[in-house]
């Protein structure tokens, strides 16, 4: 908690650490802990690398992501096509990077939807408590028990495979856990003295929730957001793999894996590279999320 973060000096730090001028904020401590976690650092670097490659790569490549070369057909990795080409002669590297834009984009956008709904819902339930809280959380309980991936599949089949709908649908599924976490955190923080102080200063509820409570529970929110992104990306790829997500000639990692799995017998690189890239990204996000959880000392309790 931020209130407890004003400890003098830094007894926990190893000898030889440079003196810290501004004192140890929660965030600074967390950063120092995170930096010591090799896997989390690896995750950060590989994510940064993948993101830059996906954003910049398609511009630098001499090939377009839907540019076909039927004379060439499927070819193994070579000097011209570093990761080979698919059966239509499209460059796999550029499709992989372009697909990364789509997959990461869907991951971020749908997570943002989930984050917004979950935080507002959880904060309101936790702050007001009582009957309103009981009804809101019972609703979440009931929604938890619904077979949501099935509804997402139905939505995608019936209402066309449209990318906006895709991330709204995914976001609508993933906000439940965020709401639970935010609620329990808000309930803990709202009893603290500084909230009492804010109240006695006559601040409105909205101001107290957004300016005083939420900044103090940012840690769990950040951790859980980091862990929601891979879950969302997985759901997108799952749908694309079933032919229900992103549609060709657009590309996403799910689409490429589906394609690769169909042709793996003759052209294994079509499966291996997208599979590796996707798994590496999920790895990195999970490592980073785990590292953040340890660094920010967030307990994974649900009560």
């Amino acid at each position, binding site marked *: 908690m931020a209130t407890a973060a004003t400890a003098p000096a830094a007894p926990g730090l190893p000898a030889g650490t440079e003196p810290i001028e501004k004192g140890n904020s929660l965030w600074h401590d967390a950063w120092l802990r995170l930096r010591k976690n090799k896997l989390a650092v690896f995750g950060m670097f590989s994510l940064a690398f993948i993101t830059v490659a996906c954003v910049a790569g398609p511009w630098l490549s001499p090939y377009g992501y839907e540019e076909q070369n039927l004379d060439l057909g499927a070819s193994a990795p070579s000097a011209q096509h570093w990761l080979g080409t698919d059966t239509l002669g499209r460059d796999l590297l550029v499709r992989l990077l372009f697909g990364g834009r789509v997959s990461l984009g869907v991951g971020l956008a749908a997570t943002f939807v989930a984050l917004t709904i979950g935080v507002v819902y959880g904060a309101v339930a936790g702050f007001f408590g009582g009957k309103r809280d009981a009804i809101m959380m*019972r609703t979440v*309980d*009931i929604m938890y*028990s*619904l*077979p949501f*991936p*099935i*509804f997402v*599949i*139905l*939505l995608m*089949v*019936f*209402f066309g495979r449209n990318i906006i709908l895709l991330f709204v649908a995914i976001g609508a599924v993933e906000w439940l856990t965020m709401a639970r976490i935010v609620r329990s955190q808000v309930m803990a923080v709202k009893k603290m003295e500084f909230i009492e102080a804010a109240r006695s200063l006559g601040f409105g509820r909205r101001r107290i929730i957004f300016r005083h409570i939420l900044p103090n529970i940012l840690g769990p929110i950040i951790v859980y957001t980091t862990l929601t992104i*891979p879950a969302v990306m*997985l759901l997108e*790829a*799952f749908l694309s*793999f*079933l032919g229900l997500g992103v549609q060709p000639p657009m590309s996403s990692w*799910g689409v490429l*894996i*589906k394609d*690769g*799995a169909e042709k*793996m*017998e003759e052209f*294994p690189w079509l*499966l*291996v590279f997208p*599979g590796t890239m*996707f*798994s590496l990204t*999920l*790895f990195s996000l*999970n*490592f980073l999320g*785990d590292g953040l959880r340890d660094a920010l000392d967030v307990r994974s309790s649900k009560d």
Partner: protein
Amino acid sequence: MLRFITSRFLQSLLALFLVISATFFMVRFVPGGPFTAEKAVTPEILRNLEAHYGLDKPLWRQYLDYLGSLAQGDLGPSFKYPNRTVNEIIGDKLPVSAELGLLSLGVALVIGITLGTLAAVRRNTWIDYVASSFGMIGISIPTFVVGPLLVLGVAIHLGWLNASGWYTSADRILPALVLGIAYAAPISRLTRGGMLEILHQDFIRTARAKGASEFRVVTRHALRGGLLPVVSYLGPAVAGILTGSFVIETIFQIPGIGREFVNSAFNRDYTLVLGTVILYAVLIMALNLVVDVVQAWMNPKVRLEG
């Protein structure tokens, strides 16, 4: 305890009703009916077909009719498979998926609990590191990557097993393994966490002090409490195995209910879609109910709060 079970049961019934109604109206409001794809359907035939299936009645009437027959366990006729009822189709396909699901769950529990317990007991040794990395890898590599890669390696290159199909008992190995490992990973992490917490407690020290062997301490004393997090994860795990079977059944071409569900959605076979969604909902909710009750039985704190 009885009050707890009753309130959970009523809650499930309400959720089930919501699922049925939401799905019913969703499939009716979408553009395109089950017969639009068929070629050369004259308006008269279309009208006859719709009358035959009761699609010409007002929507609220269809809804009440459906609920009425559902109450008698009748899921109605399939729109795409002439002369077959949804009950028959589910009766055909469900046993296949149930077998796959149970095998996978078995794989997940055996591997997950064993690895998690070993990791906790031998904390910070190489066993712990291997088990924990397995957990991370299993969580991060999706089944639709592991599945095809295993098929490529084990079935196509080595030729040890068939790449697809569901005929011999050897055909069960790869699908159950792929689906099971995906859930063994989170189970091993949860077991490790739960066991670590339990192994520090006083009653474990007491058991050790009384001379119980390490094996007995772990299996008889620690596991019951240490597995609590696993039990609460079983609901989501089984739901995940059910939906995961869509992908696995597609990869391995298994004639189960998961593949049928995806096909029925593509075909707009309203009754079959509804029937399978209801089936999944009932399974998931029944399981959540059982999990809640088992959890309450294992942990008095939960029981008294309910």
